[in-house]
């Protein structure tokens, strides 16, 4: 860990009293940040706490309404190009590479021809290789960026920052799209860059990651930086308390009151990702489907729901065999799915929250072909109260809501419909700490009302306390089903990894 004290060095980034207002909201209200060379500084906070806004100010994307921003004692030029010239580079959560340019072209972007008009390919590759070689071995500089895995793509983005002589690297949720091994490599790279004297701002939801990686931590809440301190002084518990400003409710315990078998999955297979998977879930039960990313959990969910066709096998719900042809047929059989990729598969960003809630229930609020707007509004209002959805109104566009509130709206869809089986794929992904606990409480409520729940989660700490049983998947197969009593985090990891040296974080 880099040793930094506030008194000895001058900070590379000096932000003080930064304010940024938007119509209707104050994104930053008095935010301070001191970032030193040779430290990894983590920025944590709930969704909407102001982390993104702070990054955008620092990277020149936003011009603050008030406050001081200095890089190396010089006032920051508030434009993207200006900030880049002053040595600030950002590695975004979503990939920012241009897919059809080559790796080399992406690294030197946009200075392809520093001395004139013509792009000299060999010189360009030499320049790219110089920075890229420090980060990664044997990557083909001539292949299009489209071909890169998420992890390598990210290293190319880092190289781009270094090629621009960046002294400040901002990482915005960098691990979301990475596999475990890619994550490890990224952490090593970040540590190396820190040791080389760069100032690193690391923004993440994953507090364990933060604790492992950061030298210092700054916590944001409601647009303010509420606390900064050495990482060693923070526990995850303390970070959470500081982020939320109150104690988070403990996760609920399990429902012991189980009913009949609701869903019976019998030997389903599809390609290589789902191989002969069988299990049953009873009414009121929460069945957790765990395993590494890519082990086939999401694919099993999609097959049961009907979006992907089965090669073989059967699914029975409430004692009847289900003809699975499409999501619509799954829904007709009483199955609901909260998808992992909320933005892609879940929400309709430009429709209202109300319309997003009722979209899977149109058949319920229609009479003689005509929608009852009154029922529609009532349902939305009741859902807002029951689930504590926070938005300007039921007619706000759902795209303007935080991840947690969007997720609650999608849950409201299925709660209002009343499913026999509800499948939740990473229900707390991109959801802030406070809302996570609320969402788990809701899931448990749904189970208690007699639904069978299939819960897919990568966060074992989250699903261990709530699930009745655990199905562990590996390479498309359901390897074991464990009872609650027999389970520890270690046993699951050991089974999921097949005794490889990898570990689940």
């Amino acid at each position, binding site marked *: 860990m880099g040793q930094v004290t506030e008194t000895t060095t001058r900070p590379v980034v000096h932000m003080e009293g930064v304010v940024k*207002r*938007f*119509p*209707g*909201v*104050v*994104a930053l209200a008095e935010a301070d940040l001191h970032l030193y060379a040779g430290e990894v500084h983590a920025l944590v906070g709930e*969704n*909407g*706490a*102001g*982390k*993104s*806004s702070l990054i955008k100010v620092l990277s020149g994307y936003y011009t603050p309404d008030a406050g001081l921003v200095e890089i190396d004692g010089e006032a920051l030029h508030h434009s993207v190009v200006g900030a880049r010239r002053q040595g600030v580079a950002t590695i975004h*959560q979503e990939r920012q590479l241009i897919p059809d340019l080559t790796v080399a072209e992406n690294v030197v972007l946009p200075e392809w021809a520093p001395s004139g008009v013509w792009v000299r390919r060999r010189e360009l590759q030499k320049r790219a290789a110089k920075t890229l070689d420090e980060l990664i071995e044997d990557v083909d500089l001539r292949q299009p960026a489209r071909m890169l895995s998420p992890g390598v793509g990210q290293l190319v983005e880092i190289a781009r920052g270094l090629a621009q002589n960046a002294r400040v690297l901002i990482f915005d949720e960098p691990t979301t799209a990475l596999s475990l091994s890619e994550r490890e490599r990224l952490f090593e790279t970040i540590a190396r860059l820190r040791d080389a004297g760069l100032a690193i701002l690391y923004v993440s939801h994953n507090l364990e990651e933060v604790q492992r990686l950061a030298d210092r931590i700054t916590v944001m809440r*409601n*647009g303010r930086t509420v606390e900064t301190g050495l990482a060693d002084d923070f526990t995850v518990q303390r970070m959470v308390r500081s982020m939320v400003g109150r104690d988070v409710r403990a996760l609920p315990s399990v429902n012991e009151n189980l009913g009949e078998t609701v869903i019976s999955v019998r030997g389903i297979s599809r390609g290589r990702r789902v191989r002969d998977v069988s299990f049953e879930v009873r009414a009121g039960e929460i069945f957790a489907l765990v395993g590494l990313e890519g082990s086939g959990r999401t694919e099993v969910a999609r097959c049961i729901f009907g*979006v992907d066709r089965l090669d073989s096998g059967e699914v029975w719900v409430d004692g009847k065999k289900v003809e699975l042809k*499409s*999501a*619509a047929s*799954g829904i*007709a059989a009483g199955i609901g*799915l909260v*998808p992992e990729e909320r*933005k*892609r*598969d*879940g929400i*309709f*960003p*430009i*429709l209202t929250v109300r*319309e997003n809630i*009722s*979209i*899977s229930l*149109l*058949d319920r609020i*229609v009479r003689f*072909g*005509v*929608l009852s*707007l009154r029922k529609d*509004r009532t349902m939305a*209002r009741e859902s*807002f*109260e029951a689930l504590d959805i*926070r938005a*300007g*109104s*039921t*007619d706000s566009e759902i*795209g*303007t*809501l*935080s*991840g947690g*509130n969007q997720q609650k709206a999608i849950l409201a*869809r299925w709660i209002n419909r009343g499913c026999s089986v509800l499948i939740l794929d990473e229900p707390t992904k991109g959801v802030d700490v406070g809302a996570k606990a609320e969402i788990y409480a809701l899931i448990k409520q749904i189970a208690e009302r007699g639904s069978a729940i299939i819960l897919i989660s990568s966060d074992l700490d989250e699903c261990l306390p709530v699930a009745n049983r655990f199905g562990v998947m590996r390479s498309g197969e359901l390897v074991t089903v464990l009872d609650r009593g027999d389970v520890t985090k270690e046993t699951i990891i050991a089974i999921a990894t097949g005794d490889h040296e990898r570990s689940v974080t």
Partner: protein
Amino acid sequence: MNQMTGAPPTETETSTPKTRRRFDPTRLLQDQGLIIVVLIFGIIMASLSPTFLTPTNLMNLLLQASILGIMALGMTFVIIGAGIDLSVGGIPAIVSVLTIGLVVRQELPVWAAIVIALLVGVAVGCVNGVAITRMGIAPLIATLGTLSIAIGLAFAYSGGTSIVPVPEFYKALRRAEVFGIPINIILLVVLAIVAHLVLTRTAFGRSLYAVGGNPQAAEMAGIRVKRIIFFTYVISAAAAALAGVLFTARLGAGSPQTASGIELTVIAAVVIGGTSLFGGRGNVLGTLLGAVLITMVTNAINLLGVPTAWDRVLLGVVILIAALIDVFRLRLHERWTSRKAT
């Protein structure tokens, strides 16, 4: 904060939901900024030409806007579903030559010829729908193909010339009025009301907005996406086929050149009316205003005695101005809401 646009929850947010919006004068602008353009254009025209505001001219203007409007209503469905339909430029031609040709050459009764011609028009829409939803051909390409096929068949059937004489029915249709209002305008108004109700008050309409806004999420929410998209092309083709009959009455001949090149004007009317080419947004009132505005441009050229060649230039300018106002009114709305918040 995962999404860039996410409004951070702050103290200004309330957990008690409100279903009614507070009154916001920019809201109307936000929804229908086009009204302003139409009004301004009207005021300018009224001051330039004394005949503009006469009831005859206004009625004439509406009459001219009616057929374009009917086609644009159909196109609105397609574009809300994030599609595009070029074939509407060919459907009126084939409908026109069939409605007259089947009577003149095959000696069918007038009603039978109309029914057959309309069915052929709708069939073009079905082909579009199948090509796009079942075969996965891009809408632009699929309908470009059927556009060419429809026009080509119209020419082949008619031998390249207008088919005359038109039966009495069409002369009557051209002159038909209800309470002194031409039948075309009545048709437009009735169809607009129906289209509005379908879009806002039926499961099909709601699903269509969802499909256009995010087709993947629509699939996952249990909407039969392909079926919805298919029907939008059928609706658009049906509107174009009806337009073919009305055009025939107006022209007094069954011509393979009927409405030639109208597809881009129809699309322009819909897009000027605020329907997003990316899908998921759009409404009937905007489309009507778009059709009226486009017709006003042609009308202005006639009234002011400008050579007709200029109407495409002026139309282009109006499209750009309408788009500019679109940008401007959004900013105005933002400013208004931020003033309210502080």
